[in-house]
């Protein structure tokens, strides 16, 4: 006799609460590895120093991003934009080739939900124990277990929020502030906000986020074709399903390979039955593959009743990996990644902005000399201090006076007043001038910028 899944509380619709059964297997191991690597990076990276700075630090007040020894300035915003485009394009590429790999193994929602589920299992036990506990009246055992779970969840969520803020504020200082109860208002707000988001999404909402809130889940089908890897139940092999003994002759009983154990439903984190066909709720975590393979092994049947496959393969056709869309995504990705690597390696570690004084067009000095005044903003993006030489390239008559002498510490921004002077007969109206900035010491770094020099118009 079959039983309905237990009805519990649900936030958005009267679906039964999902109690995913724990599963072991090659894909479960792969997901555990992904969780350990990704969350390991998340929690450990801020504590590692690289080139004198935190390895990854988005220092918003100083407007500098430190990523593995590289320093990105606001002027390097183009690189961050390109990185986002590369991330988006990678998602398209992976989805077209292998379906919802992102959802099943790498999405933060999956990864953190997995950890919250681990904690839930440690405290409350696996599926059947959790269902019994939820159905039981409140007693000492239930209060202790539920409270312990909440303590673990809240503690982990707070640690997650703390680490999140640690990507924006040096984490060691932040840790000291927490220990001494000297945390600033905004740091406290963001820490609690991110903790709450983690707790809510991974502890409470779980599969509802994927089903109702995630835009990627909605539009990923546009990237699918009949050669995309999906998780599918081999209906031709499995049906008609039914209970049997290992010794039964399937041909005589008229049965397929599916024994109807429903373990594939019980392990599913979104609570679907994969045997009903591909559904938008399926996050391709492959838990159903792992458990079904175990059942097939116990029954001495061939593995793969539920498997990663393609629509073409299921219908007996060949799967094509190299399709036009895959080639286009791959070429674009390679070009973009190569372009970013080249550009980052060839960045000029000096920025110069020469802004003309808006208050006066020009000044006439004794001796028929015309003077324009500029504000120079010089940024030393290098990790060494430098002294700079400034010269006008395309006009020998011009003279540059800079005060004070341009000398900058590593990653320092300096503002200087530049007075550019030229004889009145140099020209009329607006003159384009190229100004070269170069280091007086090693390594040689130089940059040329253009400016407008104004002379009398008549």
């Amino acid at each position, binding site marked *: 006799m079959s*039983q309905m899944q237990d009805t519990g509380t649900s936030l958005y619709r009267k679906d039964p609460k999902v109690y995913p059964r724990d599963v072991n297997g090659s894909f479960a191991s792969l997901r555990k590895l992904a969780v350990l690597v990704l969350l390991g990076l998340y929690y450990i990276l801020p504590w590692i120093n690289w080139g004198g700075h935190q390895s990854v630090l988005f220092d918003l007040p100083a407007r500098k991003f430190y990523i593995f020894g590289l320093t990105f300035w606001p002027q390097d915003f183009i690189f961050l934009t390109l990185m986002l485009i590369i991330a988006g394009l990678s998602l398209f590429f992976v989805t077209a080739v292998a379906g919802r790999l992102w959802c099943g193994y790498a999405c933060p929602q999956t990864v953190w939900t997995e950890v919250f589920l681990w904690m839930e299992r440690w405290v409350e036990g696996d599926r059947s124990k959790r269902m019994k506990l939820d159905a039981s009246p409140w007693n000492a055992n239930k209060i202790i277990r539920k409270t312990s779970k909440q303590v673990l969840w809240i503690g982990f969520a707070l640690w997650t929020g703390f680490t999140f803020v640690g990507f924006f504020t040096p984490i060691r200082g932040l840790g000291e502030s927490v220990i001494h109860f000297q945390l600033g208002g905004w740091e406290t707000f963001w820490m609690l906000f991110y903790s709450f988001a983690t707790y809510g999404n991974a502890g409470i909402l779980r599969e509802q986020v994927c089903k109702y809130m995630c835009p990627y889940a909605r539009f990923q089908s546009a990237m699918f074709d009949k050669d995309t890897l999906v998780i599918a139940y081999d209906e031709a092999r499995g049906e008609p399903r039914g209970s049997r003994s290992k010794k039964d002759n399937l041909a005589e009983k008229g049965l397929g390979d599916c024994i109807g154990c429903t373990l594939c439903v019980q392990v599913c984190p979104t609570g*679907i039955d994969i045997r009903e066909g591909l559904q938008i709720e399926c996050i391709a975590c492959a838990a159903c593959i792992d*458990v079904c393979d175990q059942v097939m092994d116990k029954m001495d049947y061939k593995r793969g009743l539920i498997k990663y496959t393609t629509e073409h393969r299921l219908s007996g056709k060949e799967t094509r990996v190299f399709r036009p869309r895959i080639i286009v995504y791959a070429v674009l990705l390679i070009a973009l990644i190569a372009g970013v690597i080249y550009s980052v390696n060839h960045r000029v570690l000096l920025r110069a902005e020469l802004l003309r004084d808006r208050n006066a067009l020009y000044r006439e000095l004794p001796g028929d000399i015309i003077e324009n005044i500029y504000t120079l903003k010089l940024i030393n993006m290098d990790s060494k201090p430098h002294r700079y030489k400034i010269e006008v390239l395309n006009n020998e008559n011009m003279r540059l006076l800079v005060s004070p002498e341009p000398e900058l510490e590593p990653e320092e921004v300096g503002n200087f007043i530049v007075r550019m002077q030229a004889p009145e007969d140099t020209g009329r109206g607006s003159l384009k001038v190229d100004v070269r900035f170069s280091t007086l010491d090693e390594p040689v770094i130089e940059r040329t910028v253009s400016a407008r020099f104004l002379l009398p118009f008549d």
Partner: protein
Amino acid sequence: MTTQHPLNRRWNRRQRDWAVVFWIAFLSASAGAFVLFGLVDPLDMVSSWADKYDIGLRLAYGLAFAFLYLVCLLASALTMFMIRTGPSQGHFKGKGKRPIPQVQDPSQSNPELDGEVWK
């Protein structure tokens, strides 16, 4: 004599959706621009490159508004997409749902599987 109501002036759903997306994004961007530029001079935000290209105050306002409008348009269009491709009306009450999957103890399918730890 009766006259037919001019139904041909009615918009289909896609037209209605996009009209709402564009208009709501415009209203949001306008409100955002009022508040933002009440506090910040757009030329201060872009002065380093504005000076080089000699863009005036009006163009700076225009560019900043265009950026705000683009962000609002993206949010508005994505919201429309999520709502239109989401579950239909009555979903909460169970309408149009697949039946809730039935589950059972594995040993009920095969007694030989009794006592197995499925992990």
